[in-house]
């Protein structure tokens, strides 16, 4: 986590560019691409950077076009739709799909395939990136946002995930530093799980449980590496397909809330954003905070005991001047006696709310409770110092700063990551996912 704060770039926003759909006629190349893909899915050990991952990370755009052509027919067979072979290559593809239907079966295959491409993103750095042989992006569709900045149409679901060819913006500490290609692996995995959700349920396990776990684990992974450009569509799509999953709703709120933080909002002030043709793709603080508030309220409606949602909603409401309701939510959260990082954050927000109300003794009490959990956290030390200073208690104001001066672990503040949506153990969530697939 600390390394992420120091890394050169984080990702935000999407610059859309679409490509025309490829022709649907099967070719020797498309059938071969499908065969390789099916073999990779079958051979992959979840959570391991094996030969299947090496293959999955090596697929260039042209390879994805071939795979896409065969994949459309393959999926129809997997869904048990009636298809008619019009060529030998069609027959080849249909035969491959029928084998998969028989063993391991559509549901198991789709889960494994989704995990293969998720792992491909996770382990991508271990393998050489394929040559970018994608065509030049189409001219951007420019529109004006409500904030007055030039923007472009965002990616649409009309673009098949295998054919995604988009740019995303890179920022570092609030400055634009360049752009790179958006990830296609997670969108492709999402589309596979969309198919899974529409399959007839077999056995006792509902596909939605696995899909919900997958969305939550991937969101944690994307947050942990500061990849908000790819997280945005992921979270929005997740909330569409699983509208009652509290983790998915909570993650959607967290993503939106993070965009409202200074580290992203200051990008608006970068002169480069105002240049003609440049887009922000970044919502204003008001809009993204409203989105986050809505998502947290939905989370709480689904699961009233979701402590983190109460805490984060309280932070937003305080920020938006709704202090009494903020206090009510933070009281609900503290009543549950949260521990660990969520507990720390709850005390931190409680301190801020008390401070905003001018209750500096109460604020100091909350900040000290936070320090009881993480004694070296700079945020709580400064909060405690400030509350004491405002309460005219000079010795108490100086004491936390003495601690800060002595502190040789200045990064030991969970708030630094947690406020950015990260801070939860994405590895543990992914490992649970891998175990689920491995059992099949």
């Amino acid at each position, binding site marked *: 986590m600390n390394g992420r704060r*120091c890394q050169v770039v984080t990702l935000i926003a999407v610059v859309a560019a679409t490509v025309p759909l490829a022709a649907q006629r099967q070719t020797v190349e498309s059938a071969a691409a499908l065969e390789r893909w099916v073999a990779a899915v079958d051979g992959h050990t979840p959570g391991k950077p094996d030969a299947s991952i090496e293959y999955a990370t090596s697929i260039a755009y042209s390879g994805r076009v071939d795979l896409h052509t065969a994949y459309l027919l393959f999926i129809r067979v997997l869904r048990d739709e009636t298809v008619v072979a019009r060529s030998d290559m069609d027959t080849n593809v249909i035969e491959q799909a029928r084998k998969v239907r028989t063993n391991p079966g559509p549901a198991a295959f789709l889960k494994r395939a989704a995990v293969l491409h998720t792992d491909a993103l996770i382990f991508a750095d271990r393998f050489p990136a394929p040559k970018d042989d994608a065509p030049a992006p189409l001219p951007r569709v420019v529109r004006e946002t409500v904030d007055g900045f030039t923007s472009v149409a965002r990616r649409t679901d009309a673009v098949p995930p295998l054919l995604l060819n988009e740019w995303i913006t890179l920022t570092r500490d609030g400055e634009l530093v360049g752009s790179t290609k958006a990830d296609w692996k997670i969108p492709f995995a999402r589309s596979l799980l969309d198919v899974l959700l529409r399959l007839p349920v077999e056995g006792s396990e509902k596909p939605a449980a696995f899909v919900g776990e997958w969305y939550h684990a991937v969101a944690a992974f994307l947050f942990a590496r500061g990849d908000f450009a790819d997280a945005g569509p992921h979270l929005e799509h997740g909330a569409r397909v699983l509208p009652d999953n509290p983790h998915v709703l909570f993650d959607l709120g967290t993503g939106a809330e993070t965009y409202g933080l200074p580290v992203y909002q200051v990008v608006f002030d970068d002169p480069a954003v105002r240049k003609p043709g440049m887009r922000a793709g970044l919502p204003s603080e008001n809009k993204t905070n409203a989105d986050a508030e809505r998502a947290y309220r939905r989370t709480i409606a689904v699961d009233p005991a979701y402590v983190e949602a109460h805490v984060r909603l309280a932070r937003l409401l305080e920020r938006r001047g709704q202090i009494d309701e903020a206090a009510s939510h933070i009281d609900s959260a503290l009543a549950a006696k949260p521990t660990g990082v969520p507990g720390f954050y709850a005390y931190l927000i409680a301190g801020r709310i008390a401070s905003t109300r001018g209750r500096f003794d109460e604020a100091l009490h909350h900040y000290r409770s936070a320090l009881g959990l993480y004694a070296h956290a700079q945020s709580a030390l400064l909060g405690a110092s400030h509350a004491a200073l405002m309460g005219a208690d*000079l*010795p108490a104001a100086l004491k936390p700063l003495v601690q800060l001066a002595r502190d040789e672990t200045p990064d030991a503040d969970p708030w630094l990551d947690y406020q950015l949506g990260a801070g939860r153990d994405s590895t543990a969530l992914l490992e649970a996912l891998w175990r689920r697939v491995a059992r099949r």
Partner: protein
Amino acid sequence: MVWRLTLVLTSVLVLQTFSSRTLGVRVDVLVMDGGKPVAGLTAREFELRDNGVLQRVEILDAMDVPINAVLTLDTSASIEGRPRLDLIAAGEALLDRLKPIDRASLVTFDHAVTPAIALTDDLPAVRNALRNINPNGRTSVMDGVYVALTSTVDQPGRFLLVVCTDGADTMSWLRPSEVLEASKRANAVVYSVTTSDGRRSEPLKHLADATGGQVLQISSSRDLRSAFERIVAEFRSRYVLTYSPEGVAPGGFHRLEVAVPKRRVTVKARAGYVGVEGARRP
């Protein structure tokens, strides 16, 4: 050396001892005429109102009062390379202009605030720490300024707080409004040097207005040295007014108005201070 904040307070907030004789409020005042400091004014030429009540002021001989320079420097990853070298050179130029009675301290900030060197007359130690700054991480300007400001509240002397940042505040826990409130309880003139403009430098502008300082906008790190030199020169040309408040309640916020009525000059001083009634002492 590691910063140690003393808990043995010799004075409280704005009420301090000066030259071992006067207990009162001290106000650093800059008088400018056409961009140049005006020298030679007498106490009678100043009008100082504390919460609207005219006060009788004295001018302290600034030579008697040591300058405490608090260097508050952005060491986030973006200063890597040339900006780092320019920042070190600027800091050293500032230290070069301090006198033997003066002291200095160093606070650095990226996303973490490091009180690197406590207030000391061992300027080579400050210089050494300056040369070892290591760019890293994100930017917590307000948190850094708060730590620097708070380090002044229990110390006598004149405090010149020089904040230098090349970017926007992205990671502070404390909000600009909270740090602004803290500045009213501290005793420092805040000068900021920044390459940022517009909204990004607004919190620094508000701090400068509240403390009687200034924001110097520069276009590149090459201008840092001259900016730091100018700040010290300007600070030395300030008048140090003192008075014992009369006709006003001691507690709460005291709005200050300083003027030189008979001259067509620009006067810059802190906007006010928070009185100390009810303050808890060690």
